[in-house]
């Protein structure tokens, strides 16, 4: 971990610099960041598709304004949350395979 730090205005713990390296190799840090970012982007697409499908099913028509203003009802929101949890589990279950000790 990088130990470059900035002092605070008044005592306390010095603040880490803007780009801390946590994984000993900045490439690894960037790789992890990209994977998470990619996951976010995939989720955005999936969320939109679910939205579209819900709308298509509900009205049989499709307009951009309709997509933008779609608000899931309680049941749909719950389904979305479940879907989100499953999606995150799929992508990140690898994390549990890393042993605490090498």
């Amino acid at each position, binding site marked *: 971990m990088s130990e470059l730090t900035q002092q605070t205005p008044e005592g306390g713990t010095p603040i880490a610099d803007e780009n801390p390296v*946590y994984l000993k190799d900045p490439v690894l*840090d960037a790789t992890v960041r990209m994977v998470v970012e990619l996951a976010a982007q995939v*989720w955005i697409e999936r969320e*939109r598709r679910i939205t579209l499908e819900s709308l298509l099913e509900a009205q049989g028509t499709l307009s951009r304004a309709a997509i933008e203003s779609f608000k899931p009802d309680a049941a749909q929101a719950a389904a979305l949350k479940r879907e989100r949890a499953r999606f*995150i589990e799929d992508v*990140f279950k690898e994390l*549990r395979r890393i042993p605490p000790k090498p």
Partner: protein
Amino acid sequence: MSAVPETLPALAERADAAYLDFVEGFREYILGKGADFEDRLNEALLAEQARRGQPWGEVEQIREYVHSLPLGRLRDRLSRTQQEMKWFALRRSFEAQRAALLAELERYDTRGPGRLELDPNFVHPPYVNVHFHLQPGGYYKDALSGYLYHYGTKVFFRGDNDHDELHSKLVARVPAPVDGRVERVLDLACSIGQSSTAFHRRFPSAEVTGIDYSAPMLRVAHRRAVMLGDEVTFAQRLIEKTGYADGQFDITFAFIVFHELPLRIIHETVREAARVTRRGGIFAIYDFTGTRDKSPYQRYHRWFDARHNGEPYSQDFCDCDMNAILAANGFEVAVAPLGQRSGGAGYMTNWFATRV
């Protein structure tokens, strides 16, 4: 859905909301049982402690061990990343609608119920110039700080506070003074006023005042209270130097602000609360659990949060003895740890103190 007006600012695009929804779910996953970092790393620390045959000493010692574990380092990387992603997306989305959001605030500034009291000559003390939890511009340098904070904390609370449920619950738990008299309530460092409006609802005939140094926070607080129809005064003042008369308030309240104050200001704020709270009145504090009551990994997390998540004063707060500080300033204290949320990393305690 409910008839409560939505006070959370709208994002520029549906995709922005989905991005932040992802961050919220991802936070839950890495803080909770999904990735199960906290419990597994704590177990590793306890096992190492047993192997060494002595309890962990200074946090530096714990840190060295956590950093020797790839899992510990990866967890730090992911914690930092989700926080950076949140602010990146929020800033971009609000930037895209800056003019409209500012115009919206202006429309509400002079409306009622309630009042907004900004001080055009307000001087910010230097210690507040920190990007707390990495929020761009800190709490007051961006005119949209209040909006950033509102959406940012919505994600932070992972669904527990989408409609201020957490604030309502915590305010409901504050004991009323024994004599039952509640005419004036002071919400110290009220941010966007979620506790202030909860107090107004709990004690509808009381005068509720929320103070904060951040004008952008107070403007969003006022807009929010007007939208909800709650009569609250929001004033730009320092909590360690409020300017109110002695013994003015029946209840004085502080939700998660003490860990963001340098030790010197912690002492000054408790002294000020003792001055403005009447005898028999209540001073209620919710804040981070002290170091003494933390597991080894929670102690590590406090260091990490201090250094890597813009909470530079939080370690000193957790190390200090709030009971003693309150007692020394004329308060009689009852303390209780709050129920742990998964992934809370030594989350919150309350101090309910009576001014004697």
